[in-house]
């Protein structure tokens, strides 16, 4: 109830007219587009680097594994504005990562890449943890059997392990995307512009008050819920291969 009431109340608190007007507002649409697009980029990066890492964590024991696991979860516990400051210090054009990339023409402050890394920082752990769970659910002995049948280790991963854990990877990616789209704290520090949807909602609220902020909020939340619903439906039809 505690979760449901505020969300439902928000959904009905704005009249259709102002929602439609906002849907035609270029600023709103561009903010939502930037949010969705940057979150997608952050998710792709998280999958690209997070899935191999997840496999290593699921299958191998090594010195410092506990430390790696802890580091992955750190972004969940630190306040997002602090994440933003930490990222800014490193990715600004004079920072240790920002400086060399700046020479290559990649700018982070008040730019799309800044938004992407802020999102990535906050949400990558969802992909790693979920994918890892998926890999752990595949018995390593099954991989070994595949190999005794003549399949090399890379091929075994692609045709046995990956199909059996793809569900977890997809779930993790969607969680990652949703978390990324909602990122606010780190983004306002590192890239106030270009405006993402949460930042726009905040600005409208500060500049014009609640009535101006709500329609945008309703549009964003509808988009998120719609996606969530579609994914749920797809998942339900997805074979799990578990015991019935």
């Amino acid at each position, binding site marked *: 109830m505690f979760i449901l009431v505020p969300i439902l109340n928000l959904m009905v608190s704005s009249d259709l007219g102002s929602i439609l007007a906002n849907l035609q507002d270029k600023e709103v649409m561009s903010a939502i587009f930037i949010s969705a697009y940057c979150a997608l980029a952050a998710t792709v990066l998280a999958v690209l680097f997070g899935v191999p890492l997840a496999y290593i964590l699921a299958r191998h024991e090594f010195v410092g594994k506990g430390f790696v696991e802890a580091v992955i979860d750190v972004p969940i516990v630190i306040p997002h504005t602090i994440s933003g400051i930490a990222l800014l210090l490193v990715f600004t054009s004079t920072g240790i990562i920002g400086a060399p990339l700046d020479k290559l023409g990649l700018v982070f402050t008040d730019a799309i890449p800044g938004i992407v890394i802020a999102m990535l920082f906050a949400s990558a752990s969802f992909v790693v943890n979920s994918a890892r769970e998926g890999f752990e659910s595949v*018995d390593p*002995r*099954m991989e*070994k*059997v*595949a*190999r*005794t*049948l*003549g*399949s*090399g280790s890379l*091929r075994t991963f692609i045709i*046995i392990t990956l*199909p*059996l854990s793809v569900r977890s990877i997809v779930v993790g990616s969607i969680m990652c995307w949703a978390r990324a789209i909602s990122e606010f704290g780190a983004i306002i520090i590192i890239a106030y512009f270009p405006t993402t949807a949460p930042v726009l909602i905040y600005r409208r609220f500060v500049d014009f008050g609640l009535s101006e902020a709500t329609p945008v909020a309703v549009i964003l939340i509808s988009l998120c819920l719609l996606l969530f619903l579609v994914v749920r439906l797809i998942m339900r039809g997805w*074979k799990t*291969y*578990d*015991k*019935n």
Partner: protein
Amino acid sequence: MIKIENLTKDLEEFEINQVNLEVKKNEYFVILGPSGSGKTMLLELIAGITIPDSGKIYLDNKDITWSALEKRGVGFVYQNYMLFPHKTVFENIAFGLKIRKIGKEKIESKVNEMMELLNISHLKDRLPRTLSGGEQQRTALARALIIYPKVLLMDEPLSALDRKTRANLMRKLKEIHQKFDITLVHVTHNFDEALQLADRVAIMKEGTISQVGDVDEIFRRPANDFVADFVGVENMIKGNATRNNDLTKINTGNTVIVSTENKSGPVHITVRPEDITLATQKVTTSARNVFEGRVKEISDLGTLIRLTVDVGDPLVVFLTRQSFLDLEININKTVWTYFKATAVHVF
């Protein structure tokens, strides 16, 4: 065929300690041992699933200790089958052939043939989770056999199955052993399986091999009390042996038993229940061990009746139901037991 030299591997829960073993070509070899004795690990070492700390493994005189597991030509069947849950029975069996890039039609005919051999043709399009244990094990066997491995390793292949299914599959394994040019290594804790299937048996205990030999040898002449106890030898009695002419007399403290085997000092003896005959009166026979005793326990095993007769030491004797009825045996009845000196194994 398979030759293992001084193989050692130490993991936390299990260890293999200086194991030496030779398995002959086309042999049905059973490794028998209680759980935790390291028998599964020994199999995994042969397959390359686990890498040894030291020692050598040879297959057809080739050192395979460090070969990649997909290059060994060794098949593996696990107790819980490890079928690919996202593939149908057909796809599971076809897996090894597909990897080898064999033509579609050839795969089809080979898989069909294999499914027929294992009587699972009707399950072709089913997913593993819809199959019974026995059906899953047949599929796993078919999947392993279809690439004609030189060696097939099976880890407790029958342990998860009910009695009837197990008996069926045992017959199937025998048939496979005859039909295929293959060396089978089968790990189990069940002596029955060894008895029915094995050409030779190795007994494992705490990561070492206690005894290797044919089934009869192990059953009749266990190398030590662990083997005797493990293979379920009845009538194992402790005593002190002394040599007297060509015979050994074993004084158990309660009786003196005579054996033809040459041993002295503190020993164990075993007499197989089926080597003991029973009579209600004293009769003259060539048997050197004749004891009078009372029936202490009667248990019905179906076709056989198991009696425990107290002759000073408890002796277990089997009777057929008919002779049990003919002899009119009941608890505390006095009977005579007879067994030959050659039936007494001393170790």
